[in-house]
């Protein structure tokens, strides 16, 4: 295979137009359409929900009810372009560029900690450019961690040297992941750290690394949590804030209020919801951060169990297809990348929806595709591009 993976070279005569696109072995035929459909649907549903949540929020929408809707759709457009670009380059080509990408993203999160970074909602995880543009480099770090770890872990296995990555390789890959995690911890952005830990776990699992690593990592995590709790490293109010998802009374004015209002919004939706734009909780702006972290509450209230369930179902479609891609990849590299993305999406979806439903602590993680936010949107569509690339590049015949 050549570096240009967009056309399948050396196979039959060049065909033109529809014939070529619809041919059995064409790229269009080999793309994972259910996943693309689900991701696009989620993004479009997201745009409606974002619009519903922000059309009355005059204090943030600059007096333009469509402000967030337009930007969300623009983000989607850019995201789609990024996906096409990723697909065109191919994950293998990107494999060579991993050191550069990793270094750039690392530089990005470091920049956040400099005066160039901006603090929003207590976390310093933004770089603000002029003209209303800003980026969250941590979102892209998630991708580069996946790519970087996959590159290290799969190198010798894909070369046929070893069946599984050895301890040194695993250690190297962990080192690669730990640097950005430590930086993100300094922001501090706990949610992103947790997502990255989930990614590491997914990557290690898929790489075939020794069980000892898996269990060792899990044990370290548990011990660390207990230590933080028992050694009073965190103030009581911080622990309360963390635990308020289960008992809103622990932090009634802060997180407890959010969870309570979120639960009321979702609970009041019933089977069919109040109807788009008719949710009183949404119109009344009782739920904070409703276009980003709590966007799922809009679906819950206005679209009810059917609409909110559909979102979970569409996420399920993407994850299911991604799992299939991981299993079907001809190389470990592709498998690891796909599994890392599965872990990322799954954790973020579970954490985000879970916190609105009151079964997970409240952290600032966006719901993939649905939440408003450029960086997140770009990152998940790049991930879709990677998955598609892994899928189309498997050998035609096996």
């Amino acid at each position, binding site marked *: 295979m050549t570096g240009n993976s967009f056309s399948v070279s050396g196979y039959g005569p060049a065909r033109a137009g529809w014939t070529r696109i619809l041919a059995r072995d064409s790229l269009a035929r080999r793309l994972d359409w259910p996943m693309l459909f689900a991701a696009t649907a989620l993004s479009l549903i997201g745009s409606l929900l974002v619009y519903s949540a922000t059309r009355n929020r005059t204090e943030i929408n600059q007096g333009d009810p469509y402000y967030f809707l337009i930007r969300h759709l623009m983000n989607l457009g850019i995201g789609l372009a990024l996906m096409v670009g990723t697909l065109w380059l191919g994950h293998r080509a990107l494999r060579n560029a991993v050191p550069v990408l990793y270094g750039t993203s690392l530089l990005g999160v470091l920049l956040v900690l400099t005066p160039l970074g901006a603090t929003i909602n207590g976390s310093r995880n933004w770089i603000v450019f002029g003209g209303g543009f800003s980026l969250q480099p941590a979102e892209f770090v998630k991708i580069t961690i996946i790519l970087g770890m996959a590159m290290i872990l799969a190198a010798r296995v894909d070369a046929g040297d070893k069946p*599984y990555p050895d301890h040194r390789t695993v250690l190297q890959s962990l080192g690669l992941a730990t640097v950005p995690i430590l930086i993100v911890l300094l922001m501090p952005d706990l949610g992103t750290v947790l997502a990255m830990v989930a990614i590491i776990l997914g990557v290690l699992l898929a790489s075939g690394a020794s069980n000892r690593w898996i269990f060792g990592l899990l044990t370290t995590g548990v011990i660390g949590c207990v230590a933080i709790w028992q050694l009073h490293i965190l103030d009581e109010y911080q622990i309360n804030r963390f635990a308020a998802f289960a008992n809103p009374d622990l932090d009634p004015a802060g997180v407890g209020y959010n969870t309570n209002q979120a639960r009321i919004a979702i*609970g*009041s939706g019933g089977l069919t919801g109040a109807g788009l734009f008719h949710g009183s909780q949404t119109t*009344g*702006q009782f739920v904070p951060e409703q276009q980003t972290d709590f966007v799922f509450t809009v679906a819950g209230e206005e679209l009810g169990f059917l609409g909110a369930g559909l979102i979970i179902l569409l996420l399920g479609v993407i994850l299911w297809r991604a799992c299939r891609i991981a299993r079907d990849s001809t190389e470990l590299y592709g498998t690891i990348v796909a599994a890392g993305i599965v872990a990322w999406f799954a954790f973020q979806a*579970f954490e985000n929806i879970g916190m609105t439903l*009151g079964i997970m602590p409240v952290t600032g993680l966006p719901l993939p595709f649905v939440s408003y936010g450029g960086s997140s949107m770009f990152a998940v569509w790049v991930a879709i591009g990677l998955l598609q690339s892994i899928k189309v590049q498997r050998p035609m015949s096996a």
Partner: protein
Amino acid sequence: MTNIPETGRTPRVQTRLVVIQILVLSLLGTLGGRLWYLQIREGAEYQKEASGNHVQQVVDPAVRGDILDARGVPLADNETRLVVSASRTDLLKQKDDGKAVLAKLAGVLGMKPEEVSQKVRLCDAKTPQPCWNGSPYQPIPITDEATPKQALQIRERAEDFPGITAEPEAVRRYAGPGKSNTAQVLGYLSPVTDDEIQKAKDTDSPYLRSDMVGRSGLERRYDRVLRGKAGVTRYEVDNLGRVIGKAKSDAAESGSNLVTSIDSRVQRVAEYELDKAMKKARQQFDKITGENYKADSGAVVVMEAKTGRIVAMASAPTYDPNVWVGGISGKDYKALTGKDSDYPLLNRAIQGQAAPGSTFKVVSTAAAVQAGYEWDGGYPCTSSYSVGGQVFKNFEGESFGPISLGRALEVSCDTVFYGLADREWKKDGGINPKKGQPKDYFFKTAHQFGLGKETGVDLPNEVTGRVPDRQWKLDYWKANKDAWCKSGKKDGSYVEKIAYENCLEGNKMREGDEINYSIGQGDTLVTPIQEAVIYGAVANGGTMYHPTIGKAVISADGKTVTPIKPRKSGKLPVSQATLKGMNDAFAGVITRGTAAWKFGGWPQDKIALHAKTGTAEVYGKQTTGWLATYTKDYSVIMTIAQAGTGSGSSGEAVRNIYSALYGVQGDGSIDNKKALLPEPQKGLPKVRTDGTIAAPKVTGDPAKDVEASQQDNPTNDDTQQPATSPSPSTGNSNTRRRPRRRGSRRMPT
């Protein structure tokens, strides 16, 4: 080298990928399950919570219905005051939270800026009064005494006063037409309490925090119809309390108007005459106690005899009902209810009770007939009646020889009734009757006359009075014997002797008890309203009514008129022949009997008046006078405590009330034009198409007009005793003196 499969996956990786897949699916399943739990299973609960979250109510109070007299003249209505209010919701929308507007407003109203800002701040644990205790979404009143000029300034420059309104608002007013007062009958309002709100929460007539509730009188009895239904506008608000939409609204329904049978003019005359009679009595010397009469309380009832409708009801001492309007001050409240007050809130026409004295003889006469005594039989009216060493005297030792029951009633001969009661007592088995033996005609008849229970007048807290029959004696003895037996002494003071006797046999009907009872003394208690019912029934041929003041409820739009019909409560246990005899006897009281000295020159041939006087003895106090009277249309009962005889204390006042009703002039002529109510008011006042009720104008003071017309009344003098009675031949009196007052107790009046 291991074999690397084409898929790039070793079995370990493959297994782990399946694990990942299962894990992912179970996570999504968890989310779905939780979503189902919140939205489907608990959905209704959260829906409730959500609506509580974002809906706020603004109450638009209903205008309370008027209370009108029989001609439509408002006795209680609403006066419009200019109320300036501030809407917190609107103030908070302004950049400085409305501070500038409030300061400007203070300038217009001539108040201090702090004063205004204090009024609109919300009460909480840290905020002392003054502060606003109601809903923050309710407009907060800043003053209810704005002048039209101030209101105009605010309304004309509405853009300068965002969130401020100056609206006329209804405030309860007791109009007092023609100087009438009607205080105790109307009652009063006060703000609803938390308890009441809680209790009425789930009924079909819940209270709102801003509600005023009727506390006594008609305001209380007819509270539900008068109150109407407050309008509620529900606003959807956002998390900062900003209004984002209007939800369901219920318009306010004004309360219905209550038309009463009260005639404000007659009411005024009754109040004025009662007051005048009491003042006069206080100038009279009481020979028995050696000081002037105290005349500390009294009541008048004017009732339509054929329907039981109340035309006037006055109670003294009285008060100005407008003290309640706009919240009563602590000082005023103490003056009305404190220990040192004379309890002007009591409506003594229905809550004052006293021994009826000789007015009770109407019951005793009926009892005698029921017991089988001939109406025309000759009953000895001796000067005294002796029972086992005790001598019961007739008043001033008069004697008339053998007389009929009618004559005994007319001249109020005590000894005739003593004799009859004593014979019945003996027939019933004396001091130790066998079980089931006593027929107790005298007591049974009293119950049949409606004594000892409420008349059912449409006013709250009516008292029952008391018939001291065997059962009551037993109950009373059980309750008090310990105290009696402890304090009683055989040879002690009068009180101690009474206690001693009561301890021994207070549970039994003693001979003296029944003898005393037969002339309305002793433990018997009646209320003026009970007497009005009884004498009204004698007037109308024997039908007793539940007295009513409410005559009709007319909805605010005037479209629905619900009449309140007179309700019969029973029949007097007397034949028509007996009634005729009683009628003649009571007419005789006016023409030649105990009341004649006050009714000289009365045109009896045109307006037949009937009366019975009574004087009740109250231990340790001056006597209570009763005057029970009736014509074919009205019964008028008047009583004054500690004021001497019934005719002496009330005769002139009652005559003046009748003069006012029928237009009788001082010289005995009848001026129909001046008659206030020669016939009971039949119809209801006219309801105009807009729902308002037409009412004649009441000007001047009807009581003064009546007084002026009575200038040349020959009997208008200030004497209390009938020494100069125009009919000395029948110079009898209704009172009598007993050597000992057995079982007589202090009676509240």
